[in-house]
């Protein structure tokens, strides 16, 4: 797909080819913002990579406090995983409905995504509260500092994503599906799937590994 401006630099003047361009890519602005968001995700990936590296180095620095084996509850983190992976699927369905031009379907699936996301955040918060109640606070050991920071950063990303998704649902409700709202749905989808991928790494590198090592 050609992305350059036309000779006069006018936006929104790109002629759609025989292959139909999706609505979110149909304007110059839309395609720029989607590309920009990919670059944002690249920097966010580095952010999480740093947190992962730190956590893995500090994993055994428990300073005589609780270890990952003591703390991690298999049932809890498996349910969290199921909730978040399902929400990624429903978010994909929302994009699918958006492509078909179905406003109600898009909002509906986004709503389901938000609810699943809230369930995930709720479980994480209760896990943290439980840990703190048994004395496993952020200042107990370097391991716990690394753990709360990595998992908490992911959790706050999800929470912001929920707020953002609600804003987009309101805009969809008011304005229907157009080039701008379609782009917003597409981008929040990218963000949500990215958080899902990060969670897969947390699930593996933090929770599963933490149960074994």
């Amino acid at each position, binding site marked *: 797909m050609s992305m350059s401006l036309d*000779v006069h630099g006018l936006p929104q003047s790109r002629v759609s080819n025989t292959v139909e361009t999706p609505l979110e890519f149909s304007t110059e602005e839309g395609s720029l913002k989607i590309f920009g968001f990919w670059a944002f995700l690249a920097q966010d990936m580095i952010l999480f990579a740093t947190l992962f590296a730190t956590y893995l180095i500090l994993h055994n620095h428990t300073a005589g406090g609780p270890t990952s084996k003591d703390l991690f509850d298999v049932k809890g983190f498996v349910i969290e995983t199921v909730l978040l992976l399902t929400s990624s699927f429903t978010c994909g369905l929302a994009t699918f409905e958006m492509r078909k031009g179905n406003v109600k379907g898009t909002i509906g699936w986004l709503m389901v995504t938000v609810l699943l996301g809230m369930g995930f955040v709720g479980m994480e918060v209760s896990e943290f509260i439980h840990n703190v109640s048994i004395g496993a606070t952020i200042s107990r050991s*370097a391991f716990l500092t690394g753990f709360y920071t990595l998992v908490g950063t992911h959790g706050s990303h999800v929470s912001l994503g929920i707020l953002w998704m609600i804003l987009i649902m309101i805009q969809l409700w008011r304005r229907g599906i157009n080039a701008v709202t379609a782009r917003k749905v597409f981008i929040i989808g990218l963000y949500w799937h990215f958080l899902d991928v990060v969670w897969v790494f947390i699930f593996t590198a933090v929770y599963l590994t933490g149960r074994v090592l």
Partner: protein
Amino acid sequence: MFEALFQYVNHNLIKNYMEYGADASIVMASLGIVFVLTYFKKWKWLWKEWLTTVDHKKIGIMYILAAIAMLFRGGVDAMMMRTQLAAPNMHFLSAEHYDQIFTTHGTLMILFMAMPFVVGLMNIVVPLQIGARDVAFPYLNAMSFWLFFFAALLFNISFVWGGSPDAGWSSYAPLAGAHYSVGPGENYYLLALTITGIGTIATGINFLVTILRLRAPGMTLLRMPMFTWSVLVTTVLIIFAFPVLAVALIMLLMDRLFAAHFFTVSAGGLPMMWTNLFWFWGHPEVYIVILPAFGVMSEVVSTFSHKRLFGYNAMVVSLVSIAFVSFLTWVHHFFTMGAGAAVNSFFSLSTMLIAVPTGVKVFNWLFTLYRGKIEINTAMLWALAFIPTFTIAGVTGVMLAAAPADYQYHGSAFLVSHFHYALIGGVVFGCLAGLYYWWPKMFGFTLNERWGKRAFWWFFIGFHVCFFPMYIVGLMGMPRRIYTYPAGLGWGPLNLIETIGAYAMGVGFILMVVDIALSTLHREQLKDVTGDPWDGRSLEWSVPSPAPEYNFARIPVVEGRDAFWMMKKGQTQRVDQSETLRPIHMPNNSGRPFLIGVAFFVAGYGFVFEQYILAIIGLLAILFMLAQRSFEYNTDHFIGVDEIRHTEATAGRL
């Protein structure tokens, strides 16, 4: 008796005098600005034309003005340090003050002088060089600027409000932790850098997208001007390096405020992890500021040799390989950590490897000069001074890269001299070359050559007088970051020479300000009527000076490298002036980026003083304004054909 009196004077009078002096000068300057703006009824003008602008050229100008102000502040810090070190056993500054001053000097010069200077040049030049009408995300660009601006403000008030950070610009743990750095000083450092870092990441993304997506038709990647290439590579470095800094800063902040244990000595924390994370950003950061300076060099040397840049492809390959290898060298900042022979050997070799592409670039500049029709002016002088100075930095860099020898150099004045050769000889000389070169494009008039050359010679000679003896005194064993030294070590005379050199640099800076002031006063005589005062080669010289808001009335079609040069030589078609004009789509101004900057300032201040209610208010205000933006749908407008015709006619283009 005398000793006691001296101590009293030293601790109470001089210290207080300096603090009150700083307080008073800041208050006076602020009142002066308020008075001038009110007296000339300029508040509305300031808000409408500057504070709310999303125009990349105006944002670039604001970045550069801020950078020059910070160069002044950081320069005063440097003068104070050099005064203190001019002779053995001086008591101009106390140890405590000296620590604060070398910390703020380093932090300001890197993050609040070099960075905004480079980003300012990027802003002004890149869209014009690639034939675009603005950056990809103009509103975000304004936000980047205001985050930088309010972060700089936050950092600067530390000097008069609560105390400056004093753990060095690299802020090593555990020294910078809660236990050894009590008080808000270190928090100022952490918050200010976090806020400006967010802005920088946004700038990186913005210019990556701009360069990859908004080039004029026909401008393939290998037809881009070398400055644009250097910026493209820099944006990738920013995107991959700055998040690491942001995370490290937040971690140290959590250690300090919430008793976390990332870098503490107790409870399993690892102080050396801070050092690793800091330099994993810090080394690429050196290239984030130096690569654009390389880009400026390439433009200036080629323009004033009136020749094509020699070895274009080799230049691109060396830019990319420097960027890649720069992520593999961070341990050379702390060979003495004792990571072992294998690790140190790896980082020794990777560091030396960087000398290869850098050497390629130096030779390419020399071959560009070779048999060129060389024109000497202020911009070219800065560029020519860059080559030998930066080469000395490179050679001493290779010396430092030898890990066994580094055990000797580590933490010495030799190292301090090395990185000043790189950062002043490289970045500052490059930025000043760029400033003189692109000044007419920014303001529509050239700078006075006579004063410019005077400023250059004072600064250039002063620089070498200041920093060359520092290599020697470093080899003699003088450590960095000591506030005074005993007599009888043979360091005194060399230090005095250094101080004289530093003052000469100060004179050079003042002469440059004089040059800017005089040229502004006489701007009618220095007016650039052609838009192309240097017989330039790239597209920014094809538009009037200063460039109109929309940059290009008609987007040019590019058919080769040095696009504008080819058009002038009749090798390719010029832009067809008879072609009908069409309305131009432009982004609206917005006050919100400024207000978001204010909110970040409030939140940052709240965290610095651990007043969490204030911090939460600031954070909520940020979220609220981001949400507001999401609901904003009227974000742009069209400039009508009549207005374009009028603007072009005023610039003599119709």
